[in-house]
Protein backbone atom coordinates (compact mmCIF):
# COMPACT_ATOMS: atom_id res chain seq x y z
CA UNK A 1 0.00 0.00 0.00
CA UNK A 2 1.28 3.46 -0.90
CA UNK A 3 1.34 6.37 1.52
CA UNK A 4 -1.26 9.12 1.65
CA UNK A 5 -0.37 12.62 2.83
CA UNK A 6 -1.92 15.96 3.74
CA UNK A 7 -0.23 17.66 0.77
CA UNK A 8 -3.45 19.41 -0.29
CA UNK A 9 -3.37 21.39 2.97
CA UNK A 10 0.21 22.68 2.60
CA UNK A 11 0.87 26.32 1.79
CA UNK A 12 3.18 26.89 -1.17
CA UNK A 13 5.15 30.12 -1.01
CA UNK A 14 8.13 31.93 -2.50
CA UNK A 15 11.50 32.04 -0.74
CA UNK A 16 14.57 33.73 -2.11
CA UNK A 17 18.29 33.17 -2.33
CA UNK A 18 21.35 34.35 -4.22
CA UNK A 19 24.26 32.39 -5.71
CA UNK A 20 27.24 32.93 -3.38
CA UNK A 21 30.98 32.90 -4.09
CA UNK A 22 33.01 29.77 -3.52
CA UNK A 23 34.20 29.43 0.06
CA UNK A 24 37.87 29.56 0.96
CA UNK A 25 39.31 29.73 4.45
CA UNK A 26 43.03 29.13 4.08
CA UNK A 27 44.86 26.19 5.63
CA UNK A 28 43.23 24.41 8.57
CA UNK A 29 44.36 21.31 10.45
CA UNK A 30 42.84 17.96 9.56
CA UNK A 31 41.86 15.51 12.33
CA UNK A 32 45.51 14.40 12.55
CA UNK A 33 47.09 17.83 12.31
CA UNK A 34 47.93 18.10 8.61
CA UNK A 35 47.29 21.58 7.15
CA UNK A 36 44.70 21.43 4.36
CA UNK A 37 43.37 24.03 1.91
CA UNK A 38 39.81 22.90 1.30
CA UNK A 39 37.39 23.58 -1.53
CA UNK A 40 33.94 22.60 -2.69
CA UNK A 41 31.70 24.65 -0.42
CA UNK A 42 29.71 27.53 -1.85
CA UNK A 43 29.63 28.84 -5.40
CA UNK A 44 28.98 27.05 -8.68
CA UNK A 45 30.39 23.54 -9.10
CA UNK A 46 30.46 22.77 -12.83
CA UNK A 47 31.40 19.12 -12.45
CA UNK A 48 29.77 17.89 -9.24
CA UNK A 49 26.15 16.77 -9.18
CA UNK A 50 23.77 15.04 -6.83
CA UNK A 51 24.40 11.33 -7.35
CA UNK A 52 28.20 11.69 -7.53
CA UNK A 53 30.49 10.14 -4.91
CA UNK A 54 31.04 11.93 -1.59
CA UNK A 55 34.65 10.81 -1.37
CA UNK A 56 37.69 11.33 -3.52
CA UNK A 57 37.60 14.96 -4.71
CA UNK A 58 41.08 16.51 -4.65
CA UNK A 59 41.33 18.85 -1.64
CA UNK A 60 37.54 18.56 -1.41
CA UNK A 61 35.97 19.04 2.00
CA UNK A 62 32.22 19.22 2.61
CA UNK A 63 31.78 19.38 -1.21
CA UNK A 64 28.32 20.65 -2.15
CA UNK A 65 26.83 19.46 -5.47
CA UNK A 66 25.55 21.92 -8.06
CA UNK A 67 24.85 25.52 -7.13
CA UNK A 68 24.99 27.05 -3.65
CA UNK A 69 22.64 29.88 -2.76
CA UNK A 70 21.91 31.76 0.46
CA UNK A 71 19.05 33.78 1.85
CA UNK A 72 20.03 37.41 2.36
CA UNK A 73 17.12 39.01 4.21
CA UNK A 74 18.45 38.29 7.72
CA UNK A 75 21.94 38.63 9.26
CA UNK A 76 22.51 34.86 9.20
CA UNK A 77 21.51 32.63 6.25
CA UNK A 78 20.16 30.07 8.75
CA UNK A 79 17.51 32.55 9.90
CA UNK A 80 16.21 33.16 6.37
CA UNK A 81 12.96 31.78 4.99
CA UNK A 82 14.90 29.84 2.35
CA UNK A 83 16.76 27.90 5.07
CA UNK A 84 13.68 27.09 7.11
CA UNK A 85 10.99 26.52 4.48
CA UNK A 86 12.55 25.20 1.25
CA UNK A 87 12.17 21.43 0.92
CA UNK A 88 14.09 18.89 -1.10
CA UNK A 89 12.37 18.47 -4.46
CA UNK A 90 10.88 21.99 -4.57
CA UNK A 91 11.05 23.85 -7.88
CA UNK A 92 13.69 26.59 -8.13
CA UNK A 93 13.68 29.34 -10.76
CA UNK A 94 16.29 31.92 -11.71
CA UNK A 95 14.87 35.42 -11.45
CA UNK A 96 17.88 37.33 -12.78
CA UNK A 97 20.88 36.92 -15.06
CA UNK A 98 21.42 35.20 -18.39
CA UNK A 99 19.49 32.11 -17.36
CA UNK A 100 16.48 34.06 -16.08
CA UNK A 101 13.32 31.94 -15.81
CA UNK A 102 15.19 28.63 -16.25
CA UNK A 103 14.28 26.03 -13.67
CA UNK A 104 16.04 23.72 -11.24
CA UNK A 105 15.36 21.73 -8.08
CA UNK A 106 16.20 22.39 -4.40
CA UNK A 107 18.38 19.47 -3.21
CA UNK A 108 19.30 20.14 0.43
CA UNK A 109 20.65 22.46 3.09
CA UNK A 110 24.13 22.54 4.59
CA UNK A 111 24.05 23.81 8.18
CA UNK A 112 25.19 27.29 8.88
CA UNK A 113 25.09 28.76 5.46
CA UNK A 114 24.43 26.96 2.26
CA UNK A 115 21.25 26.02 0.38
CA UNK A 116 21.81 23.70 -2.56
CA UNK A 117 20.11 23.73 -5.95
CA UNK A 118 20.41 21.47 -8.99
CA UNK A 119 20.22 23.03 -12.43
CA UNK A 120 20.59 21.37 -15.86
CA UNK A 121 24.14 21.54 -17.28
CA UNK A 122 23.16 24.00 -20.03
CA UNK A 123 21.72 26.33 -17.37
CA UNK A 124 24.78 26.07 -15.11
CA UNK A 125 26.98 27.30 -17.99
CA UNK A 126 25.04 30.58 -18.02
CA UNK A 127 25.01 31.23 -14.26
CA UNK A 128 26.89 33.99 -12.49
CA UNK A 129 27.66 34.45 -8.82
CA UNK A 130 25.02 36.85 -7.51
CA UNK A 131 22.17 35.52 -9.68
CA UNK A 132 18.92 35.33 -7.76
CA UNK A 133 17.03 32.09 -7.30
CA UNK A 134 13.43 31.81 -6.06
CA UNK A 135 12.16 28.52 -4.65
CA UNK A 136 8.51 27.46 -4.36
CA UNK A 137 8.71 26.29 -0.74
CA UNK A 138 6.27 23.43 -0.22
CA UNK A 139 6.55 20.73 2.43
CA UNK A 140 6.69 22.24 5.93
CA UNK A 141 3.82 20.62 7.85
CA UNK A 142 3.79 17.54 5.61
CA UNK A 143 2.43 14.45 7.38
CA UNK A 144 1.75 10.88 6.38
CA UNK A 145 -1.82 9.77 7.08
CA UNK A 146 -1.93 7.17 9.84
CA UNK A 147 1.72 8.01 10.69
CA UNK A 148 1.26 11.47 12.14
CA UNK A 149 3.79 10.60 14.88
CA UNK A 150 6.53 10.23 12.26
CA UNK A 151 8.33 13.55 11.85
CA UNK A 152 8.63 14.57 8.20
CA UNK A 153 11.32 17.20 7.58
CA UNK A 154 12.73 19.12 4.61
CA UNK A 155 10.81 16.81 2.30
CA UNK A 156 8.60 17.99 -0.58
CA UNK A 157 5.47 15.97 -1.35
CA UNK A 158 7.13 15.11 -4.66
CA UNK A 159 10.18 13.56 -2.98
CA UNK A 160 8.16 11.74 -0.31
CA UNK A 161 5.87 10.19 -2.91
CA UNK A 162 8.78 9.09 -5.11
CA UNK A 163 10.89 7.46 -2.38
CA UNK A 164 9.23 4.07 -2.89
CA UNK A 165 7.83 4.06 0.65
CA UNK A 166 5.23 1.37 1.30
CA UNK A 167 2.87 0.86 4.20
CA UNK A 168 3.06 -2.54 5.89
CA UNK A 169 0.67 -2.72 8.83
CA UNK A 170 1.72 -0.04 11.32
CA UNK A 171 5.14 0.48 9.71
CA UNK A 172 6.50 2.47 6.82
CA UNK A 173 8.94 0.46 4.68
CA UNK A 174 11.65 2.79 3.38
CA UNK A 175 14.35 1.88 0.82
CA UNK A 176 17.85 2.95 1.93
CA UNK A 177 21.39 2.60 0.61
CA UNK A 178 23.09 2.00 3.98
CA UNK A 179 22.61 1.77 7.72
CA UNK A 180 24.78 4.20 9.71
CA UNK A 181 25.34 3.50 13.42
CA UNK A 182 24.23 6.47 15.49
CA UNK A 183 27.58 6.83 17.25
CA UNK A 184 29.14 7.94 13.96
CA UNK A 185 26.99 11.07 13.88
CA UNK A 186 29.07 14.11 14.74
CA UNK A 187 29.11 17.78 13.89
CA UNK A 188 25.60 19.21 13.96
CA UNK A 189 24.39 17.19 16.95
CA UNK A 190 22.78 19.61 19.37
CA UNK A 191 23.40 22.63 17.17
CA UNK A 192 19.76 23.68 16.89
CA UNK A 193 16.35 22.97 18.36
CA UNK A 194 15.00 23.22 14.81
CA UNK A 195 15.65 20.35 12.43
CA UNK A 196 14.78 22.30 9.30
CA UNK A 197 17.81 24.56 8.75
CA UNK A 198 20.59 22.05 9.29
CA UNK A 199 22.35 18.83 8.44
CA UNK A 200 24.65 16.72 10.58
CA UNK A 201 27.71 14.74 9.69
CA UNK A 202 28.62 11.07 9.39
CA UNK A 203 32.15 11.25 10.83
CA UNK A 204 34.83 10.05 8.40
CA UNK A 205 37.97 10.72 10.39
CA UNK A 206 38.75 7.18 11.53
CA UNK A 207 40.27 5.35 8.53
CA UNK A 208 39.48 1.85 9.86
CA UNK A 209 35.85 2.76 10.54
CA UNK A 210 35.47 4.26 7.04
CA UNK A 211 36.45 0.88 5.57
CA UNK A 212 34.36 -1.15 8.04
CA UNK A 213 31.14 0.66 7.11
CA UNK A 214 31.95 1.25 3.42
CA UNK A 215 31.63 5.01 3.82
CA UNK A 216 33.72 5.79 0.71
CA UNK A 217 30.94 4.32 -1.44
CA UNK A 218 28.31 6.80 -0.29
CA UNK A 219 26.92 9.17 -2.90
CA UNK A 220 25.52 12.67 -2.69
CA UNK A 221 21.74 12.22 -2.52
CA UNK A 222 21.87 8.69 -1.05
CA UNK A 223 19.07 7.82 1.37
CA UNK A 224 20.49 6.37 4.61
CA UNK A 225 19.23 5.13 7.96
CA UNK A 226 20.72 6.67 11.10
CA UNK A 227 20.27 4.18 13.93
CA UNK A 228 19.40 5.38 17.45
CA UNK A 229 19.02 8.94 16.22
CA UNK A 230 16.02 11.18 16.86
CA UNK A 231 15.44 14.32 14.79
CA UNK A 232 12.10 15.75 15.85
CA UNK A 233 13.22 18.88 17.71
CA UNK A 234 16.95 18.99 17.14
CA UNK A 235 19.30 16.12 16.37
CA UNK A 236 20.76 13.51 18.71
CA UNK A 237 20.88 10.10 20.40
CA UNK A 238 17.76 8.25 21.51
CA UNK A 239 17.96 4.50 21.95
CA UNK A 240 15.72 2.70 19.47
CA UNK A 241 14.83 5.83 17.49
CA UNK A 242 15.34 5.82 13.71
CA UNK A 243 16.04 8.66 11.33
CA UNK A 244 15.98 8.44 7.53
CA UNK A 245 18.02 11.12 5.83
CA UNK A 246 19.70 12.10 2.59
CA UNK A 247 23.33 13.00 2.09
CA UNK A 248 23.71 16.59 0.95
CA UNK A 249 27.45 17.27 1.14
CA UNK A 250 30.64 15.29 0.85
CA UNK A 251 33.54 13.93 2.83
CA UNK A 252 35.68 15.80 5.36
CA UNK A 253 39.10 15.42 6.94
CA UNK A 254 38.27 17.65 9.92
CA UNK A 255 37.73 15.94 13.29
CA UNK A 256 34.06 15.19 13.88
CA UNK A 257 33.02 16.00 10.30
CA UNK A 258 32.05 14.03 7.20
CA UNK A 259 29.18 13.60 4.73
CA UNK A 260 26.23 15.72 5.90
CA UNK A 261 22.72 14.36 6.28
CA UNK A 262 19.42 16.23 6.08
CA UNK A 263 16.91 14.28 8.18
CA UNK A 264 13.75 13.43 6.17
CA UNK A 265 11.81 11.08 8.48
CA UNK A 266 12.25 10.37 12.19
CA UNK A 267 10.45 8.07 14.62
CA UNK A 268 10.78 7.21 18.25
CA UNK A 269 8.25 4.38 18.20
CA UNK A 270 9.48 1.76 15.74
CA UNK A 271 7.20 2.99 12.97
CA UNK A 272 9.84 2.59 10.25
CA UNK A 273 11.40 -0.50 8.70
CA UNK A 274 14.08 -0.33 6.02
CA UNK A 275 15.01 -2.36 2.95
CA UNK A 276 18.35 -2.04 1.17
CA UNK A 277 18.22 -0.53 -2.31
CA UNK A 278 21.59 0.67 -3.67
CA UNK A 279 19.73 3.05 -6.02
CA UNK A 280 17.85 4.91 -3.26
CA UNK A 281 19.00 8.43 -4.14
CA UNK A 282 17.26 11.79 -4.44
CA UNK A 283 18.78 12.37 -7.91
CA UNK A 284 16.86 9.34 -9.19
CA UNK A 285 13.70 10.04 -7.20
CA UNK A 286 13.57 13.62 -8.52
CA UNK A 287 14.48 12.73 -12.12
CA UNK A 288 17.78 14.67 -12.04
CA UNK A 289 19.82 11.93 -13.72
CA UNK A 290 19.07 8.60 -15.33
CA UNK A 291 22.39 6.82 -14.81
CA UNK A 292 21.86 5.69 -11.20
Amino acid at each position, binding site marked *: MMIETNKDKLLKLAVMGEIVPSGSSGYRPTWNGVPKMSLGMGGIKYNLRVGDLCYGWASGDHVEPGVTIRGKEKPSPSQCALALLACIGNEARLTSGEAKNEKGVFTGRHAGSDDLVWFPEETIEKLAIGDKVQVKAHGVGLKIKGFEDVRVNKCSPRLLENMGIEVDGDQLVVPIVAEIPGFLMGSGIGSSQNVEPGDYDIQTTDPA*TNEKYGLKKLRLGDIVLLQDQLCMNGRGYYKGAMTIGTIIHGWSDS*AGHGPGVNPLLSTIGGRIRTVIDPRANTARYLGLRDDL
Partner: protein
Amino acid sequence: MVKTNKDNLLEIALQGEITHTAIPSTYTTTWDNRSQMSLGRGGIVYNVKVGDPCYGWELGDNVEPGVSADGTDNDRAKGGFRNLSNVGNRVKVLSGEAKGSWGTVIGKVGYLPDRSHHVVMHFKQEVIDDLTVGDKVQIRAKGAGHKFLDYPGVAVVSCSPELVEAWGIEEKGGKLHVPVTKVVPMDYVGQGAGGSPPQASNWDIQTQSPDAVEFCRDLRFGDIVLLEDTLSYYGRGYYHGAVTVGVVITGPSNHMGHGIGVSTLLSCKEGQIVPKVDPDVNLKRMLELED
Protein backbone atom coordinates in the same frame (compact mmCIF):
# COMPACT_ATOMS: atom_id res chain seq x y z
CA MET B 1 54.95 10.83 39.09
CA VAL B 2 54.60 11.12 35.33
CA LYS B 3 57.45 13.17 33.84
CA THR B 4 56.32 16.44 32.23
CA ASN B 5 57.81 19.53 30.61
CA LYS B 6 56.25 21.83 33.22
CA ASP B 7 59.47 23.78 33.70
CA ASN B 8 59.37 24.80 30.03
CA LEU B 9 55.83 26.15 30.06
CA LEU B 10 55.26 29.86 29.71
CA GLU B 11 53.17 31.46 32.45
CA ILE B 12 51.09 34.32 31.10
CA ALA B 13 48.26 36.66 32.12
CA LEU B 14 44.82 36.31 30.52
CA GLN B 15 42.19 38.89 31.26
CA GLY B 16 38.42 38.53 31.02
CA GLU B 17 35.16 39.68 32.56
CA ILE B 18 32.48 37.92 34.55
CA THR B 19 29.63 37.32 32.09
CA HIS B 20 25.91 37.77 32.32
CA THR B 21 24.00 34.53 32.62
CA ALA B 22 23.46 33.22 29.08
CA ILE B 23 19.82 32.67 28.36
CA PRO B 24 18.06 32.76 25.00
CA SER B 25 15.69 35.68 24.49
CA THR B 26 12.64 33.46 24.38
CA TYR B 27 11.28 30.00 25.19
CA THR B 28 13.22 27.19 23.59
CA THR B 29 11.93 23.86 22.27
CA THR B 30 12.89 20.75 24.20
CA TRP B 31 13.64 17.41 22.54
CA ASP B 32 10.11 16.21 23.34
CA ASN B 33 8.35 19.25 21.87
CA ARG B 34 7.77 21.31 25.00
CA SER B 35 8.53 24.99 25.51
CA GLN B 36 11.04 25.74 28.24
CA MET B 37 12.58 28.83 29.83
CA SER B 38 16.03 27.63 30.87
CA LEU B 39 18.49 29.00 33.39
CA GLY B 40 21.84 28.41 34.95
CA ARG B 41 24.24 28.84 32.00
CA GLY B 42 27.03 30.80 33.56
CA GLY B 43 27.28 34.29 34.97
CA ILE B 44 27.24 34.07 38.76
CA VAL B 45 25.43 31.01 40.13
CA TYR B 46 25.45 31.52 43.90
CA ASN B 47 24.26 28.13 45.03
CA VAL B 48 25.84 25.54 42.75
CA LYS B 49 29.50 24.60 43.13
CA VAL B 50 31.96 22.03 41.94
CA GLY B 51 31.20 18.79 43.80
CA ASP B 52 27.42 19.37 43.76
CA PRO B 53 25.06 17.04 41.83
CA CYS B 54 24.42 17.82 38.14
CA TYR B 55 20.76 16.81 38.39
CA GLY B 56 17.98 18.35 40.41
CA TRP B 57 17.95 22.05 39.51
CA GLU B 58 14.51 23.34 38.51
CA LEU B 59 14.52 24.59 34.88
CA GLY B 60 18.28 24.17 34.98
CA ASP B 61 19.69 23.52 31.51
CA ASN B 62 23.45 23.18 31.03
CA VAL B 63 23.91 24.71 34.50
CA GLU B 64 27.48 25.84 35.21
CA PRO B 65 28.80 25.72 38.78
CA GLY B 66 30.15 28.93 40.31
CA VAL B 67 31.26 31.84 38.18
CA SER B 68 31.94 32.18 34.46
CA ALA B 69 34.02 34.70 32.56
CA ASP B 70 34.86 35.27 28.91
CA GLY B 71 37.54 37.19 27.09
CA THR B 72 36.62 40.67 25.94
CA ASP B 73 37.74 43.06 23.22
CA ASN B 74 38.93 41.61 19.90
CA ASP B 75 39.08 38.00 18.70
CA ARG B 76 42.76 37.74 19.64
CA ALA B 77 42.05 38.61 23.26
CA LYS B 78 39.03 36.34 23.39
CA GLY B 79 40.92 33.47 21.76
CA GLY B 80 43.74 33.73 24.27
CA PHE B 81 41.38 33.66 27.22
CA ARG B 82 39.50 30.63 25.88
CA ASN B 83 42.34 28.57 24.41
CA LEU B 84 45.22 29.20 26.79
CA SER B 85 43.49 28.95 30.19
CA ASN B 86 43.90 25.68 32.07
CA VAL B 87 41.97 23.72 34.66
CA GLY B 88 43.67 24.36 37.99
CA ASN B 89 45.09 27.78 37.07
CA ARG B 90 44.66 30.47 39.71
CA VAL B 91 42.55 33.52 38.88
CA LYS B 92 42.59 36.91 40.59
CA VAL B 93 39.72 39.40 40.80
CA LEU B 94 41.00 42.77 39.53
CA SER B 95 38.03 45.05 40.17
CA GLY B 96 34.94 45.46 42.32
CA GLU B 97 34.29 44.61 45.95
CA ALA B 98 36.15 41.30 45.77
CA LYS B 99 39.29 42.90 44.29
CA GLY B 100 42.38 40.92 45.21
CA SER B 101 40.53 37.64 45.91
CA TRP B 102 41.70 34.43 44.24
CA GLY B 103 39.80 31.56 42.64
CA THR B 104 40.53 28.55 40.41
CA VAL B 105 39.68 27.65 36.79
CA ILE B 106 37.58 24.45 36.77
CA GLY B 107 36.55 24.02 33.12
CA LYS B 108 35.45 25.55 29.84
CA VAL B 109 32.16 25.73 27.98
CA GLY B 110 31.23 26.66 24.42
CA TYR B 111 28.14 26.44 22.18
CA LEU B 112 26.61 29.42 23.95
CA PRO B 113 24.31 32.04 22.39
CA ASP B 114 26.11 34.61 20.19
CA ARG B 115 29.19 32.36 19.86
CA SER B 116 30.38 33.35 23.32
CA HIS B 117 32.37 31.01 25.59
CA HIS B 118 32.67 30.55 29.32
CA VAL B 119 35.75 29.80 31.35
CA VAL B 120 34.21 28.47 34.57
CA MET B 121 35.79 29.39 37.91
CA HIS B 122 35.46 28.34 41.52
CA PHE B 123 35.51 30.96 44.29
CA LYS B 124 34.75 30.68 47.99
CA GLN B 125 31.20 31.67 48.92
CA GLU B 126 32.34 34.86 50.66
CA VAL B 127 34.04 35.95 47.43
CA ILE B 128 31.10 35.00 45.21
CA ASP B 129 28.80 37.10 47.40
CA ASP B 130 30.92 40.17 46.57
CA LEU B 131 31.28 39.58 42.82
CA THR B 132 29.47 41.58 40.15
CA VAL B 133 28.75 40.84 36.51
CA GLY B 134 31.44 42.72 34.59
CA ASP B 135 34.15 42.38 37.24
CA LYS B 136 37.57 41.94 35.66
CA VAL B 137 39.46 38.74 36.37
CA GLN B 138 43.00 37.72 35.42
CA ILE B 139 44.20 34.14 35.05
CA ARG B 140 47.83 33.18 35.65
CA ALA B 141 47.77 30.73 32.76
CA LYS B 142 50.27 27.89 32.71
CA GLY B 143 49.59 24.65 30.84
CA ALA B 144 49.49 25.32 27.09
CA GLY B 145 52.13 23.08 25.50
CA HIS B 146 52.01 20.66 28.42
CA LYS B 147 53.40 17.22 27.58
CA PHE B 148 53.91 13.88 29.28
CA LEU B 149 57.51 13.34 28.18
CA ASP B 150 57.38 9.54 27.96
CA TYR B 151 53.94 9.48 26.28
CA PRO B 152 54.06 11.55 23.08
CA GLY B 153 50.76 10.00 21.92
CA VAL B 154 48.87 11.52 24.83
CA ALA B 155 47.50 15.02 24.21
CA VAL B 156 47.50 17.08 27.43
CA VAL B 157 44.79 19.69 26.93
CA SER B 158 44.17 22.66 29.23
CA CYS B 159 45.74 20.94 32.26
CA SER B 160 47.68 23.03 34.78
CA PRO B 161 50.79 21.49 36.40
CA GLU B 162 48.90 21.63 39.72
CA LEU B 163 46.13 19.44 38.32
CA VAL B 164 48.55 16.87 36.89
CA GLU B 165 50.38 16.71 40.23
CA ALA B 166 47.18 16.30 42.26
CA TRP B 167 45.51 13.79 39.94
CA GLY B 168 47.24 10.61 41.09
CA ILE B 169 48.03 9.27 37.62
CA GLU B 170 50.15 6.10 37.90
CA GLU B 171 52.53 4.59 35.37
CA LYS B 172 52.39 0.82 34.94
CA GLY B 173 53.84 -1.18 32.08
CA GLY B 174 54.14 1.75 29.70
CA LYS B 175 50.59 2.92 30.33
CA LEU B 176 49.03 5.71 32.34
CA HIS B 177 46.42 4.59 34.86
CA VAL B 178 44.20 7.64 35.18
CA PRO B 179 41.73 8.02 38.09
CA VAL B 180 38.23 8.72 36.70
CA THR B 181 34.76 8.78 38.20
CA LYS B 182 33.02 7.05 35.31
CA VAL B 183 33.56 5.61 31.81
CA VAL B 184 31.03 6.93 29.27
CA PRO B 185 30.06 4.88 26.17
CA MET B 186 30.38 6.63 22.79
CA ASP B 187 26.64 6.26 22.08
CA TYR B 188 25.92 8.96 24.66
CA VAL B 189 28.50 11.49 23.45
CA GLY B 190 26.92 14.27 21.39
CA GLN B 191 27.54 17.95 20.82
CA GLY B 192 31.20 18.79 20.69
CA ALA B 193 32.05 16.53 17.74
CA GLY B 194 33.36 18.70 14.93
CA GLY B 195 34.47 21.51 17.21
CA SER B 196 38.03 22.80 17.22
CA PRO B 197 40.37 23.37 18.97
CA PRO B 198 39.80 21.00 21.91
CA GLN B 199 41.34 23.62 24.23
CA ALA B 200 38.15 25.69 23.95
CA SER B 201 34.55 24.63 24.40
CA ASN B 202 33.40 21.16 25.43
CA TRP B 203 31.93 17.74 24.66
CA ASP B 204 28.36 16.93 25.80
CA ILE B 205 26.99 13.66 27.21
CA GLN B 206 23.49 13.61 25.71
CA THR B 207 20.72 13.47 28.31
CA GLN B 208 17.46 12.77 26.46
CA SER B 209 17.30 8.99 25.95
CA PRO B 210 16.12 7.31 29.21
CA ASP B 211 19.15 4.98 29.31
CA ALA B 212 21.51 7.95 29.10
CA VAL B 213 19.64 9.83 31.82
CA GLU B 214 19.85 6.81 34.11
CA PHE B 215 23.57 6.52 33.40
CA CYS B 216 24.22 10.19 34.21
CA ARG B 217 21.93 10.52 37.23
CA ASP B 218 24.67 10.44 39.88
CA LEU B 219 27.25 12.64 38.12
CA ARG B 220 28.54 15.72 39.96
CA PHE B 221 30.18 18.90 38.72
CA GLY B 222 33.91 18.27 38.81
CA ASP B 223 33.68 14.52 38.20
CA ILE B 224 36.36 13.18 35.88
CA VAL B 225 34.94 11.09 33.03
CA LEU B 226 36.46 9.05 30.23
CA LEU B 227 34.61 9.28 26.89
CA GLU B 228 35.16 6.12 24.83
CA ASP B 229 35.98 6.22 21.09
CA THR B 230 36.54 9.97 21.02
CA LEU B 231 39.69 11.75 19.88
CA SER B 232 40.54 15.33 20.89
CA TYR B 233 43.87 16.05 19.17
CA TYR B 234 43.26 18.80 16.60
CA GLY B 235 39.51 18.94 17.03
CA ARG B 236 36.87 16.70 18.55
CA GLY B 237 35.62 13.59 16.75
CA TYR B 238 34.98 9.85 16.62
CA TYR B 239 37.91 7.45 16.53
CA HIS B 240 37.44 3.81 17.45
CA GLY B 241 39.55 2.89 20.46
CA ALA B 242 40.62 6.45 21.24
CA VAL B 243 39.72 8.06 24.55
CA THR B 244 39.13 11.55 25.87
CA VAL B 245 39.30 12.30 29.59
CA GLY B 246 37.62 15.46 30.83
CA VAL B 247 35.96 17.22 33.74
CA VAL B 248 32.18 17.58 34.12
CA ILE B 249 31.46 21.29 33.83
CA THR B 250 27.74 21.66 33.00
CA GLY B 251 24.54 20.00 34.11
CA PRO B 252 22.10 18.07 31.88
CA SER B 253 19.88 19.54 29.17
CA ASN B 254 16.43 18.95 27.72
CA HIS B 255 17.62 20.05 24.30
CA MET B 256 18.35 17.33 21.75
CA GLY B 257 22.01 16.43 21.46
CA HIS B 258 22.96 18.51 24.51
CA GLY B 259 23.67 17.36 28.01
CA ILE B 260 26.33 17.16 30.64
CA GLY B 261 29.28 19.21 29.43
CA VAL B 262 32.79 17.77 29.58
CA SER B 263 35.86 19.99 29.31
CA THR B 264 38.79 18.15 27.70
CA LEU B 265 41.94 17.32 29.73
CA LEU B 266 43.62 14.32 28.05
CA SER B 267 43.21 12.37 24.82
CA CYS B 268 44.95 9.38 23.26
CA LYS B 269 44.35 7.03 20.33
CA GLU B 270 47.18 4.63 21.04
CA GLY B 271 45.88 2.83 24.11
CA GLN B 272 48.22 4.47 26.62
CA ILE B 273 45.41 5.71 28.89
CA VAL B 274 43.78 3.14 31.16
CA PRO B 275 40.88 4.30 33.37
CA LYS B 276 41.13 3.62 37.11
CA VAL B 277 37.49 4.00 38.14
CA ASP B 278 36.82 5.44 41.60
CA PRO B 279 33.40 7.03 42.27
CA ASP B 280 34.99 9.47 44.72
CA VAL B 281 37.26 11.11 42.12
CA ASN B 282 36.28 14.77 41.78
CA LEU B 283 38.10 17.98 40.95
CA LYS B 284 37.00 19.55 44.23
CA ARG B 285 38.95 17.00 46.22
CA MET B 286 41.88 16.88 43.81
CA LEU B 287 42.45 20.64 43.93
CA GLU B 288 41.32 21.00 47.57
CA LEU B 289 38.73 23.63 46.63
CA GLU B 290 36.93 25.14 49.62
CA ASP B 291 33.32 26.36 49.49
